[in-house]
């Protein structure tokens, strides 16, 4: 299983990658902004995407919109501090598969990963 982790925070990518490693995923592609994430997916599709919302160049919402526009049904988990109902709805309408708000506990992230890694 290959996973794309998109977040402009290097430490947040490491936190997510630690959790991915813990559920047995080691084939991971990192992106430090939205455009990098879109380019990485176009270059080599993955089986799961975790993306931040607020990133330089293109946002996580742009990532979801552009990848869905490609016809992809890859599961996408938005991991973000954006927690307002209108934003969650916008993300769902754009095509996110799941939503995790920061701050989160390790078990919260693990539960989301279990859902898609086991699928």
């Amino acid at each position, binding site marked *: 299983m290959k996973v794309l982790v998109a977040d402009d925070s290097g*430490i947040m990518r490491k936190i997510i990658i630690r959790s991915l490693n813990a559920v047995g995923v080691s084939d991971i592609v990192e992106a430090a902004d939205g455009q990098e994430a879109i380019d990485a997916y176009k270059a080599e599709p993955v089986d799961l995407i975790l993306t931040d919302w607020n990133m330089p160049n293109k946002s996580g919402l742009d990532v979801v919109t552009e990848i869905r526009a490609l016809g992809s049904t890859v599961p996408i988990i938005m991991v973000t*501090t954006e927690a307002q109902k209108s934003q969650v709805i916008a993300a769902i309408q754009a095509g996110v598969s799941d939503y995790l708000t*920061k701050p*989160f506990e390790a078990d919260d992230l693990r539960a989301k990963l279990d859902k898609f890694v086991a699928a």
Partner: protein
Amino acid sequence: MSTSTQEKRTELSDSQKKFIAPFVKMTKDVFSMMLGWQVDLIGVLTNDSSASRHDCSGIVGLSGAIRGSVVISVDQEVAISAAGSFIGERPDSINSDVIDTVGELANMIGGASKDKMGISGISVGLPTVVTGKDHRVSFEPGAHVEMLQFSSPHGPLTVEIAVVGLVL
């Protein structure tokens, strides 16, 4: 740090308590949920330009419905310990992981708090981190500044909220 007014208050008004409440809660939640640390509010300084600052500051801007910034400031030991908790290996000194940690703490505290301020349409910018003893963070002239002082298992930290055009 420079502010246009220099005012210290020992007792908070109801409007001040309401204003700082989301930031107190989310600071506690960020440290508790992400790091397993208990942090406690030990003081609040209002528009106090003499307030001491720590070694590393993470800053996020607020825009849209309000204009201002949120700054978390921590000592080196707090920053390194937090980075160590995040990545499972304690850095020897302030490196890119430590810088990223302070920036992400600012992002989470600022981002999560703004949704609980009861004001819609606030955006939070990408974090900036400043390090070094006696570094300065200057706020816009006229900004109202509340500095929240917390204790943590690894040392003290502060969270400042500076907002322009706010009367409390």
